[in-house]
């Protein structure tokens, strides 16, 4: 949890020094929020938007802490990102999954003493073309996420082939002004090449499939006004392990952006089955500070 504490400390510091220089010139909430992988986007799906508010002559970034609690698990994420001139986003994230109810089963069935799964993610996202607000065809970005398990005992025991992997994705985002009841509509679509099991927390590759596959991800959001964004996300997932069936992810989110410095996101998340425990649904909360 040291990463968590470090991010928390910086985040508090940033919030307490708020009121000085503004984080950047892009319009409110156009940096999205921080996904569980550390890249800018919604909660589960990366968007073509680059983190924070840096525009073409500026730099900036974000710090974020997130927590997801499903029926049998809890996931903590600490993440940081840097945005150079709204061209390149670099991010790091650390995920810690508390196995809660799975701990006993692991001990009984596999003789494993493990109560957490941990993974580090380093990400890069390049804006290829366009601006989400001003370009008729929206904004297009190419990203990658390199993921490494810090604890591989459990993924290995259930059949994962590798403790690291790299996702590559292409995203498009477009804001349509006054599209729904005169409210602005944000559309995002992402195609990801991945062999990650449960986003990588259960390792990479498996007996059913060991190659990168293309997955579709999408989200739709409506800006109630410039402070509130409500929306829906979908993330298709591979299903590489016979031992642990995996389903697509869904969430329904509400993000509050009181000003550029702060964003608070709450979501209802449906993760499907995870490592044999069925129907994982729960709540997600994320706090993001921009600098």
């Amino acid at each position: 949890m040291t990463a968590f504490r470090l991010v928390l400390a910086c985040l508090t510091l940033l919030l307490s020094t708020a009121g000085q220089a503004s984080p950047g010139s892009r319009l409110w909430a156009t940096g999205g929020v921080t996904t569980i992988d550390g890249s800018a986007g919604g909660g589960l799906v990366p968007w073509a938007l680059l983190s924070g508010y840096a525009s073409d002559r500026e730099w900036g970034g974000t710090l974020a802490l997130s927590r997801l609690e499903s029926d049998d698990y809890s996931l903590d994420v600490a993440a940081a990102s840097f945005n150079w001139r709204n061209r390149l986003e670099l991010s790091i994230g650390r995920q810690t999954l508390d196995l809660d109810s799975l701990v006993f089963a692991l001990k009984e069935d596999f003789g494993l003493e493990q109560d957490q799964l941990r993974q580090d993610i380093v990400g890069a996202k390049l804006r290829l073309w366009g601006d989400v607000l001003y370009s008729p065809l929206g904004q297009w970005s190419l990203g990658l996420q390199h993921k490494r398990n810090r604890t591989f005992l459990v993924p290995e025991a259930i059949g994962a082939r590798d403790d690291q992997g790299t996702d590559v994705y292409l995203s498009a985002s477009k804001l349509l002004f006054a599209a729904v009841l005169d409210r602005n509509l944000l559309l995002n679509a992402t195609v990801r090449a991945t062999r990650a099991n449960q986003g990588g927390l259960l390792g990479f590759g498996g007996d059913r499939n060991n190659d990168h596959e293309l997955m579709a991800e999408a989200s739709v959001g409506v800006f109630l006004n410039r402070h509130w964004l409500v929306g829906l996300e979908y993330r298709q997932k591979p299903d590489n392990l016979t031992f642990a069936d995996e389903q697509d992810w869904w969430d329904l989110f509400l993000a509050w952006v009181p000003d550029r410095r702060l964003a608070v996101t709450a979501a209802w998340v449906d993760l499907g089955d995870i490592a044999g425990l069925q129907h994982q649904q729960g709540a997600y909360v994320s706090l993001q500070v921009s600098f």
Partner: protein
Amino acid sequence: MTPIRPWLLILILAVTAGCQTPVAAPDDTLYQDLGARSGIADVVEELLYLIVDDDRINRQFRGLDVVSFHRHLTDQLCQLAGGPCTYSGRAMRPLHAEMAITDTEFNALTENLVLAMERNGIATGVQNRLLARLIALYPEVRNL
């Protein structure tokens, strides 16, 4: 003259007349929702105050003929909103091209416009409708 001809003539007249008549009065609901020309003029005035205070862009506006700028921008927004105004200022592209406006500056101006509308009590939906029309000018202003 065969008897068909007059009917054909009537038909043609009817069709072409149908094309020309009720040239529906231009939709000016956005103009009205913005508070007509005086409402728009207030927004532009507020925008000017915000620009002067904004270090990201006020350099560009140094030495501005405030009265003429105010009239021209008000007319332009009024026309864009479907109101009974005619923009009589200079063409967007050549005027802005020499300033080499960056995205940072464009965003700063958009932000100030939104704040100016907010301070004049313009509803979110009305702001969005104006922005939807304004962003069409982005390539001209940035000279892309």
